[in-house]
């Protein structure tokens, strides 16, 4: 077996292991014979552990050869005329460490959730969705073409939506899930259109035809105009998944999901999916100053917004959501500045810290009591908070803005969502009136459609 074959096998293993657990748990469940809690957690955890070990071995193999990238061609998924969707994976200095990090984190959260959700109705559903997430994440990270990346991206969005709405009996959870899904869906337009533009520009979705294969020192192989268009579309797509202003309103609501999923999605991996895609396409961004400036403006704007709004939150998970948003904004700005390693280190360190904080959040009171007992009293207020240096009137103004969540939801709702829905309801009511005339029936009163 050659070095290439061995790495190819390991890369496939990283992807196939979580996907196989999906089939192992999903098929019996669909046929009415779900495995027990213990077996479910072990199967899914085993998949992540296998992916993690395969990732570590691949990392070692890559390190030995100086991180020379390896492209794994799994063949053509389908092709029509000049349009070919290839299944290409890439093992390089970005993807393999990131897979180790994400599968390792998934395995840890899997172990935590096995205990945390014990006897919870929907235990199997949670683990199935976690397996979907793990598969999607690995697919996105290892993607060597924009088609594969889009497939992983979509799996991430769907699993995230279903886990936000995990507690189906709660109305708020259902509304939060729908809101997140709508935001994802709107922003996915960016990635979908980018994929089409890439296909038109280079004849396939392969990254190696777009910017070579040498991350982080790739060379943009398309004209600057194409690079700018694709970069702007990618930034738009990333804004949704990474909760950047003005698409950030869904994130605090997304904390309605179970704590383990909140930790891995909105503290660690899903929130940084946008940043990962931008890092993967850094060569394109280099040729697109407009997109980089946009990233800096959006990132810093989001960080400022989330920092101010986060200060007035009264529940811990919302506070942590805004803290995640702040860091995601800063990471966007760092990518916009053209840095590569700093945002990557920032992503990993932030993800580890935040997921730990979210996992510990149900025990926050207990932790606080322990801290107070150790200190022998209250820790005291932060006397050096920068906000206190501001004029009092400005502090009051900022406080009001923060209470209204920066007016973001109000603006988006009043300018776009409410008029759009009102228009649709009006059209639906007209339809019903017209149908009543056609059918010779009395109209039912013209209430809300």
């Amino acid at each position, binding site marked *: 077996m050659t070095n290439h074959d061995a790495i190819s096998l390991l890369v496939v293993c990283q992807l196939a292991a979580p996907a196989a657990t999906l089939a192992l748990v999903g098929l019996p*469940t*669909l*046929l*009415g014979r779900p495995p027990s809690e213990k077996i479910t957690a072990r199967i899914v955890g085993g998949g992540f552990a296998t992916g993690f070990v395969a990732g570590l071995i691949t990392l070692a193999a890559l390190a030995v050869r100086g991180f020379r990238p390896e492209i794994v061609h799994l063949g*053509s*998924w*389908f*092709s*029509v*005329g000049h*349009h070919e*969707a290839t299944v290409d994976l890439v093992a390089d200095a970005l993807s393999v460490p990131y897979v180790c990090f994400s599968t390792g984190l998934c395995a840890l959260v899997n172990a935590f959730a096995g205990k945390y959700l014990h006897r919870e*109705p929907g235990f199997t559903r949670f683990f199935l969705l976690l397996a979907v997430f793990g598969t*999607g994440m690995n*697919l996105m990270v290892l993607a060597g073409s924009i*088609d594969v990346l*889009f*497939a*992983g991206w*979509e*799996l991430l969005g*769907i699993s995230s*939506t*279903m886990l936000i*709405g995990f507690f*189906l*009996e709660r*109305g708020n*959870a*259902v509304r939060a*899930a*729908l809101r997140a*899904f*709508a935001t994802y*869906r*709107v922003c*996915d*337009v960016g990635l*979908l*259109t980018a*994929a*089409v533009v890439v*296909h*038109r520009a280079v004849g396939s979705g392969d990254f190696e035809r777009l910017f070579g294969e040498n991350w982080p020192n790739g060379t943009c192989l398309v004209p600057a105009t194409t690079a700018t268009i694709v970069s702007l579309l990618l930034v738009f797509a990333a804004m949704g998944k990474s909760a950047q202003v003005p698409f950030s309103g869904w994130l605090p609501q997304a904390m309605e999901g179970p704590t383990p999923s909140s930790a891995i999605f909105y503290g660690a991996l899903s929130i940084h999916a946008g940043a990962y895609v931008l890092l993967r396409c850094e060569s394109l961004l280099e040729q697109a100053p407009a997109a980089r400036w946009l990233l800096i403006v959006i990132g810093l704007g989001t960080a400022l917004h989330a920092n101010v709004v986060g200060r007035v939150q009264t529940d811990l998970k919302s506070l942590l959501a805004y803290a995640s948003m702040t860091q995601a904004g800063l990471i966007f700005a760092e990518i916009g500045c053209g840095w590569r390693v700093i945002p990557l280190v920032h992503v990993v360190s932030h993800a580890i810290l935040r997921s730990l904080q979210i996992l510990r959040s149900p025990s926050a009171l207990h932790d606080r009591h322990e801290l107070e007992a150790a200190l022998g009293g209250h820790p005291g207020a932060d006397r050096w908070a920068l906000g206190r240096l501001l004029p009092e009137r400005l502090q009051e103004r900022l406080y009001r803005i923060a209470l209204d969540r920066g007016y973001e939801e109000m603006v988006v709702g009043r300018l776009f969502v409410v008029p759009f*829905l009102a228009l*649709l*309801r009006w*059209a*639906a009511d007209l*339809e019903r009136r*017209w*149908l*009543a005339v*056609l*059918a*010779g*029936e009395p109209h039912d009163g013209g209430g*809300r*459609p």
Partner: protein
Amino acid sequence: MTPADMPALLSAAAVVVAAPLAGAVAVALGFRRGNPRGLAVAATTAALLASLTITFLWSRSDGTGVAFGERLGGGSFVCIDGITAVLLPYVALVELVILLVAPRRSLEPGAVARILFGAAATCGLFLTSHPLVLVALWCATVLPTWISVRSTPGGAGAARVFAIAMAAATACMAVGTVLLVLDPPWSGASGLAGDAGGWLVAVAVMIRKGIVPFHSWYPKLFSGATMSTSLAATMPQVASYTAVRLLIGHADHPEGVATELVVLAQMALVTATYGAALAIVQRSLRSLIGTLAMSQSAMVLAGLAGTLPMELNGAFCVWLSSGLALTGIGLVAWALESRAGEIRLETLQGRFWDAPALAAFFLLFGLSGIGLPGTLSFVADDLIVSGSLDEQLHAGLLVIVSTVLCGVAMMRGWFHVFGGPVDPDGPRHSILVRERVALTMLLAPLFVLGLWPGPLVRALDRATSRLLAVPAASAAAAGHPAEVGGLQESPQGR
């Protein structure tokens, strides 16, 4: 395909039509009056197996279309090509699962006979390209639907709307086809009457497919008729097939597609987007399915007008994926309704813990209809979006907007049906074995063809390239002749 395969091919084609027809006659004559499901399922299973035989035999050929019997106006009495080979098993499968899932009280002998007769007529329609036979079978598929809707309690309004729409469509279709046959524009004659005929056929297709402004009957049928009637009438997409046979691939169309179809496609794009947007604010599950079906059906027509094989290929993939997914959702909705009545969407219904298995199937079908990676709809969306954007920017953007809105509407439907406070004293229903089997049969092709789309896409590539008279890349690569050969030339290949 070797000449030795021809008798088998013809026999299979005969079984596809004869089995459900014989079943309909038997049920109408009173056989198995107490429980006609078994007989009906046997008849449609035979049709499904025969259609799969046709697909298998065709797949062994070089992609050549085969035609038998009388020829008229560019069509043949029996026409079997790539389109037939791909679509016929789909139609037979939809009919079979409808019969498997139907609640017992919906299967009185008259209803079963009508379903089987409709199945035979629809399968027959998918086996012909003869213009007059198309018109006759077009009428034959309308009649049982109308009788069923009329006999549904509370369905008088829907029957009236359906009758108005179908009378207009059938009249346009009949007159248009006769004009096309008398003065075929593709024969080099004056073609003036033929042109008028083409436009009449286009209007007929518009009405039958529920294209704006003739779309109202679509959601009304879903809210006023039984689910079996609605699904059997809309999912096979008889009008799309007619458009393929009469408006694509004739010599006078410089790019292979008639002008009428290009205009139709623009209207279809508007319908696809409008239907998807309307679906977001529907108040009942049935009307949600109706508007989504309208949107997806329009999307198919929009793709069919493409001059690139990729777009046409995407249209056929959307045809299959949306048809299977919406049939699945319709059947799950029917199963839920048969247990606890009508399902509204204004408030959260909290039905998850009532029927978790049905919720899982609904979700899987829903995701399979909105482009979940690993399902056929992901491939379909990829092809149709790329094809549309390649051809016209506005078309591509409308397709993208439509898919976004469809996704939001679908997920809203799922969350509103299954989310919400649970009634602790409410009923608990487990899924029946026949329901599980039928829904799994419907789900399997969506995932299998999604994970392994190569053979389907290649088959469609060959078929659509021949339709557009463009040599298929695959055929050229394989060294197959681009011209149509076989027992008898297919008119589309000329």
